[in-house]
């Protein structure tokens, strides 16, 4: 082939400017669109009048001034010649213009006088202070202008305030209009202002609940939560705090890492990371291993230090349950739901790789993450298992010194990490969650040895802010097992609820700790530390019955979920309810207070679920998966149920007899 010879080099002549150099011509506009050039010169009749008046004023002013000066000259002949007329006239002109544009003709005379007097005054001052530099004159002008602007702004403010005061409750028609987000935000603020001083600012026709409903609706649209979750949050926080919480939940918390004290020290790690271009700081006084990463030039999750196991990426809130657990060396510790192994490896680090650490998770895929993290971080004292946490006490009853239960939850505290929580959760999800949590917590308590010389502690934590998944679960455990709440030893965090709407929980629940994004700059979190004081599981006939009844009610619900015919399910539930209440009354004599509490609980739960109210559609929507699961349960429960019922009847008869005696 070879190179192509260029025989005609230099002969090529360019033809025209080329395609790309083509220039578009100016667009041709239709005559109708063209602005008439002399439109500026044409003045409206009002403008003409104003111009006339201005000119008249000018003439008058000039005359007056001249007269003034003549008078002054007569008074003092030694004074310096008057200021250049041009300046003053200009000043007048601008002033007048402003006035004219602002007001109508009516006040003109009056204003004229005013400006005159001002003029005179300035003239006087001028004559007193000898000659002013042009800059100084400008300054005086500017100050006047500023004062005027301030006045205007103030007036506007007052107008705004007046507007706020007269917040009108929207009518149905106005509600239907599509509103912008800013309008919604404005309205949220207004409603909150009204609610804060309700008796003063309220609209007499509307009740507080109406206002609150409106607020809820607006908050739902603005922050895109579903109705249910927003209602829960509104019940949880006072209004002033609610907005802060919602606002803080939108923002991601800072990236934090935990130094692996098995392999390195925090100072060394910080130095190594700074050398790689990571901008970081200690997390706070409360932790000796935490670092906050502000910015980084390299991916923090893939540096050689990370791969070498010198640190792990972990949220600040994840430090807390482990610190509360305070594991000691040579103990037997269980982490019930440990994937991906962040907290568990923290425990191992605090134990300095001594003793035994059981890291369990029920999801087999997630245990791979535990394996990876443990080997990377050099944790060697661990046994990683994959089983249902509820089965652990069957294998290792009263075995562990400490147990950490970071229970599976709805994740309402980590909305920033997973936005789908806002809309995907409803009553049923939460109910499922706290049922599981209760069972897990009981299992955790059962597997702890109360007689352990160093321990006997259980730490329960969730990343949810809802009371149902936190205090209520603890309260349940306090009733069911021989445990008491102890101080978490964290030193900060807000106290847990002891009273919540209609619920009166155990008074020691103030020892639990809650953490919020807007207060503590971490994810929403809950930590409770329990101490087991006896290995005996308190059981009495009555509580047994109550439990069984509870189970029965739940089963009835599950059955009703499957069935599409409405009648049977409602009757079944009612039957179960009746039984519950009957049993409650029968047993009242045996253990009054306790039974009473139980009864309340029993009644509460079904009323909260209110399956009868669930329309048929939802039961269909729940999908095949759920159906199959509940069917399996149903089959199992039906099989196992028969002897139970007999047992129950037998007991009832016994009780009645006892009662009669």
């Amino acid at each position, binding site marked *: 082939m070879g190179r192509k010879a260029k025989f005609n080099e230099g002969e090529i002549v360019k033809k025209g400017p080329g395609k790309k150099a083509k220039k578009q011509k100016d667009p041709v506009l239709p005559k109708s669109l063209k602005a008439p050039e002399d439109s500026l010169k044409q003045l409206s009749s009002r403008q003409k009048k104003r111009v006339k008046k201005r000119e008249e004023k000018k003439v008058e002013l000039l005359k007056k001034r001249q007269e003034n000066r003549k008078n002054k000259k007569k008074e003092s002949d030694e004074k310096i010649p008057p200021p250049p007329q041009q300046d003053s006239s200009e000043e007048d002109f601008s002033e007048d213009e402003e006035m004219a544009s602002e007001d109508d003709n009516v006040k003109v005379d009056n204003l004229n006088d005013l400006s005159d007097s001002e003029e005179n005054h300035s003239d006087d001052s001028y004559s007193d202070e000898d000659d002013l530099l042009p800059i100084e004159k400008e300054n005086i002008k500017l100050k006047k202008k500023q004062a005027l602007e301030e006045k205007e702004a103030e007036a506007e403010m007052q107008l705004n305030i007046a507007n706020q005061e007269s917040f009108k409750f929207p009518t149905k028609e106005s509600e239907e209009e599509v509103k912008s987000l800013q309008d919604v935000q404005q309205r949220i603020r207004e409603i909150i202002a009204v609610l804060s001083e309700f008796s003063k600012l309220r609209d007499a026709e509307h009740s507080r609940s109406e206002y609150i409903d409106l607020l809820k609706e607006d908050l739902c649209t603005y922050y895109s939560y579903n109705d249910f979750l927003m209602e829960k949050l509104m019940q949880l926080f006072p209004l002033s705090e609610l907005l802060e919480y919602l606002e803080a939940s939108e923002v991601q918390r800072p990236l934090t890492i935990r130094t692996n004290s098995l392999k390195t020290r925090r100072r060394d790690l910080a130095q190594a990371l700074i050398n790689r271009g990571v901008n970081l700081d200690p997390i706070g006084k409360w932790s000796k291993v935490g670092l906050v990463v502000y910015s980084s030039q390299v991916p923090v999750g893939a540096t*050689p230090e990370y791969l070498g196991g010198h640190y792990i990426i972990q949220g600040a809130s994840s430090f807390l349950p482990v610190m509360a657990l305070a594991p000691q060396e040579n103990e037997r510790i269980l982490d019930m739901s440990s994937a991906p192994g962040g907290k568990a490896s923290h425990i191992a680090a605090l134990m300095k790789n001594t003793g035994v650490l059981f890291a369990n998770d029920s999801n087999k895929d997630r245990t791979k993450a535990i394996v990876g993290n443990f080997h990377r971080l050099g944790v060697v004292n661990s046994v*990683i*298992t994959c*089983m249902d946490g509820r089965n652990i006490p069957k294998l290792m009853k009263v075995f562990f010194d400490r147990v950490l239960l970071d229970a599976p939850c709805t994740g309402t505290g980590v909305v920033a990490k997973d936005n789908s929580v806002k809309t995907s959760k409803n009553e049923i999800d939460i109910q499922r969650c706290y049922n599981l949590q209760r069972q897990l917590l009981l299992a955790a308590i059962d597997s702890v040895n109360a007689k352990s010389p160093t321990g006997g502690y259980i730490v329960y934590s969730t990343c949810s802010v809802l009371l149902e998944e936190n205090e209520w679960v603890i309260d349940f455990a306090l009733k069911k097992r021989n445990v008491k709440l102890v101080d978490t030893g964290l030193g900060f965090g807000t106290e847990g609820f002891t009273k919540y709407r209609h619920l009166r929980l155990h008074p020691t629940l103030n020892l639990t700790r809650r953490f919020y994004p807007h207060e503590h700059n971490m994810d929403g979190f809950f930590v409770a530390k329990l101490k087991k004081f006896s290995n005996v599981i308190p059981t009495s006939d009555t509580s047994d019955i109550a439990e069984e009844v509870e189970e029965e009610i739940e089963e009835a619900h599950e059955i009703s979920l499957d069935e599409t015919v409405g009648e049977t399910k409602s009757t079944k539930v009612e039957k179960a309810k009746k039984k519950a209440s009957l049993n409650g009354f029968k047993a009242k004599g045996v253990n009054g207070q306790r039974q009473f509490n139980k009864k309340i609980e029993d009644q509460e739960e079904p009323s909260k679920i209110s399956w009868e109210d669930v329309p048929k559609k939802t039961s269909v929507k729940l999908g095949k998966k759920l159906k199959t699961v509940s069917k399996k349960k149903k089959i199992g429960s039906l099989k196992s149920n028969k002897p139970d019922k007999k047992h129950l009847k037998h007991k009832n008869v016994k009780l009645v007899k006892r009662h009669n005696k």
Partner: protein
Amino acid sequence: MRRLSEDRTKVLFEKLAKYIGPNIKQLIERPDGIYCFREQKNRVYYVSENILKFANTMPADNIISLGTCFGKFTKTGKFKLHITALNYIAPYAQCKIWLKSSAEQQFLYGNNVTKAGLGRISENCEKYQGALVYSMSDLPLGFGVAARSTAECKMVDPLTVVCFHQSDIGEYIRSEDDLL
């Protein structure tokens, strides 16, 4: 969870000897308690007897891992050392190779070590001996097989492979799912 058979113990120790030589003794006779090798689903775990005692209460099917996983026996009966064993073999290594910081990243992505990336090498490394790879700041990065002896290394040109890659800590990210 069962003891290793005689044959398998032999295979395992032969493999370990390539990297840490006579230091295997240190692994078996430790001052801080009795440690032993156990096998489950062809994986070999190195674990304290104390922990093993407790782990035996769990059903074997539910145990995913215990102590430290050293590696696995392949279907052909050979032993494959895993990166997870690094914590134990790094302190006892006989042949060490230090990488320049520029070559670190390459090695962590699974590439062999060339002469250009070689920072330092311990003396009297033999050809085809198991070698531990470190960064210049003494962070163990993985292990491989020395492709040249120390003496040969000095002579070769910069692009020659000095150490064949076997395993590196990048696997914790690259293949977390099949670490075991």
